[in-house]
């Protein structure tokens, strides 16, 4: 089947790429660009491990056809830190024990980042709602709430 040519911005860099129409965004990121930080848990849009930010909104990349990336800006976990400097959300997850096995963590952090971009001072309930599409089996979520609160605090003043 015909390959489709797409153009998009991936973690700040413009990319032109040819993809098969049935390929998912997750497959393209992991296999073509070796961005394996984005994980595949269920492959059915239920667990949130594959969450990336596309056009400012979180998506389950396992459900998004790669061709839909055309013309979009995509941010994955690999694009969050600036060189050696972690993003405040990443920093907070390390400091506040917001991760254990780490498998849900990239998706969880992307959901947290999108939440804080939209709502810089979320209440605890808004944090709970903001990550309700991301399963975590290890933490029981409490430390994740604390991490996101700490990140919100650190990001005050547009850091």
């Amino acid at each position, binding site marked *: 089947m015909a390959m489709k040519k797409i153009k998009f911005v991936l973690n700040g860099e413009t990319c032109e790429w040819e993809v098969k129409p049935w390929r998912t965004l997750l497959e393209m990121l*992991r*296999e073509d660009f070796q*961005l*394996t*930080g*984005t*994980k*595949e*848990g*269920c*492959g*059915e849009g*239920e*667990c949130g*491990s594959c969450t990336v930010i596309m056009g400012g909104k979180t998506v389950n990349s396992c459900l998004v056809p790669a061709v839909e990336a055309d013309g979009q800006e995509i941010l*994955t*976990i*690999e694009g*969050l*830190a600036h060189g050696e400097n*972690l993003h405040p959300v*990443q920093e907070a*997850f*390390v*400091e*506040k*024990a917001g*991760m*254990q*096995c*780490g*498998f*849900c*963590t*990239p998706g969880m*952090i992307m959901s947290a980042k999108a939440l804080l971009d939209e709502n810089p001072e979320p209440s605890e309930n808004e*944090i*709970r*709602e903001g*990550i*309700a599409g*991301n*399963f*975590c*089996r*290890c*933490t*029981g*979520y*409490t*430390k*994740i*709430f604390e991490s996101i609160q700490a990140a919100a605090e650190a990001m005050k003043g547009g850091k």
Partner: protein
Amino acid sequence: MEEYSVIGKRIPRVDGRVKVTGEARYAADYSMPGMLWCKMLRSPYPHARIVSIDTSRAEKLPGVKGVLTGKDFNGWTWGWMPKTRDEPPLAVDKVRYLAEAVAAVAAIDEDTAEEATELIKVEYEELPGVFDPEEAMKEGAPRVHDYVKNNLSWDFHMDFGDVDKGFGEADLVREDRFETGRVITGYLEPPAAVALWDSGGITIWAAKQSPYFVYRHLAACFNLPLNKVRIIQPFIGAGFGGTKNDSLAGDFCSVLFSKRTGRPVKFVYNMHEVLMTCRRRHNMIIHNKMGMKKDGIITAMQSKVIADGGAYTAIGPLTMYLTGSISTLPYKLPHFRHDAYRIFTNNPIGAAMRGHGVTHTRFAAEIQMEMMAEELGIDPIEVRLKNAITAPYETINKVTVHTCGLKEGLKTLSENPKWKKRSGGSPPEGPLSHGVGISGTAYLGGARQRGHQSCGAVVRLCEDGTIDYLTGATDCGQGSDTVLVQIVAEELGLGVEDVDIKRVDTAVTPCDAGSYGSRVTVLAGGAARNAARDVKRQLAEVAARNWEVDPGDIIFKDQRVYVKGEPEKAMPFRKLAQVACYAGSGAVIIGRGYSQYGIEELDFDKGIGNAGTSYSFTSQLTEVDVDLETGFVKCTDMVIAHDCGRPLNPINVEAQNQGGAIQGMGQAMYERFAMDLGKTLNANLADYKMPLSTDVPNIELIDIITDDPNGPYGAKEASEGSTVSSPPSVVSAIHDATGIWFKEQPVTPEKIVMALKKKRE
């Protein structure tokens, strides 16, 4: 109490940074040039004879590099004990559960491999199946394994004291039937591996919680010496027992394909395969009988446990052992009898999961004890305090407890303002009824199975004063790498940043029993401490020679080394490392240590002795709001008073306990596999309900410090304890809100609505 520099501090995880940047690589993140993909063909029947398999069409599909069936493994089977080796890598003459692997394909890509599995033609002769363990035990039931009468996979019996005498002394005797559900471990990382067979033997990057199990399985299956089997650990996306503590069809097939093709071979199970086939918590029926005096003192307990073992034995004998041997904790039992039966059915395999074995029978005993206290008009905390053990204590089956913070934990909770919010049976004003529940439970740490149990550690000094630390213990996500690094750093007076823990690699790291039964901090931690002390001893000798003092007077602290009482005799640790490494003809400083297990022989047949080195005690208060119209339960708060001896990293111990408690809450309130004739009906994460961020309560944690003499720096286990304490505490709270005792997990809204309706009638 000795003052520590690193131990007991809230130190961020050593793997935190690589996990938040996406750098941490898990098994499925590995790929190699020329790599093939392996896919399984799975059985459409739960019980059927395999009449024939025709692989010719699959083999002819372009891109296919090989097809395997059960016969390719020459009759090899594996299992937890020599006499229970009943599981083949691929089904041979019959399939025993739905979606059991029957054949495997290796192809140049995943899609081709998948397509080829559909071209394999298997002729089956369907057999009558058996799916209910109580049915399966009956005479004449279909046999899952032809040679096993009444489908009895394993039985285990304990009989201590004289239960009849005990029941005779009781003022109240109750008999109840309890049931615990089939629960998934719930890791989000599906099992995966990349296998490579070359002249060096097998190398496999596999998602394994206890890689040394698989190391032995692969050596046995492929008839290789252990030094030709190399398992390199990626990061592990959690385990919680069961599947990642064992080998899988995908492991054996990928290795054999690599042997035949000379190419690396990868498999990744999808979540559907995980939920259809992977090992899950046994569901158990527990017939419990308890005797109690008017004052609340328990006189005797008798339990009959029937567990749905599924199609193969796996680790089931240990599960059965734990259902009974730990029942004698944490309440005094003068007379105890236990009969446990693990039954084969044509369901997926029951195996270990966090809170292994203990969660089932402790749930039954906790709820029954509280039911009886209620009948006798005794407060739920009071009945627990009356029966709780105090350390030191030896149970009737010779389980020895050196430290126990149960009473202190229960007393702490009894003084909590939340406990005063108990309804105690008073009716609610609106449709929402508030309830507060309690539990007090125990779990073992430093667990042992049969056979090799020890842990080893190697600490290598680099000439710049940094440390390479090698352990065979796997961090499956709960933070053991961090605590082990803390231990090495503490002993050498260094910071965690000076110690680098290497990934487990069976070719390099010392053999380790595995990451199960809350054993890593206790046993691998002991090994780490001993290995670090070995390095310290060698360095102290060098320093003592240098300063002409006694080696016992050399102090290691804050990255410096000095002589006790003579602060002018001091140098940086780094400097001493150089002096030591460059001394003489080139010294190499390597420390080694192993865990000194030091406990007496365990009688696995009779249930006598210690299955662990120490025991944690967890007291848990839970608050719920129950909607009496819809049966919906919202768990709002938990307070957990946990005796883990001493938390070596409090923030990680909190995190572990929170996770364990929520896992237990899910099991109590909604998690279960819905099964119909061997088919898992909810084999996806939308229909199998695990707790989400919007479901979890506020959790307050209280450390009860007991400093166990058998753990490093006083530590015992953490988090399996809260997995065990959570279900009875939640169910006790639901009872407080509804006035109804629910004896079957999970307590779903449907069950609550039906029970309330029945109560009104």
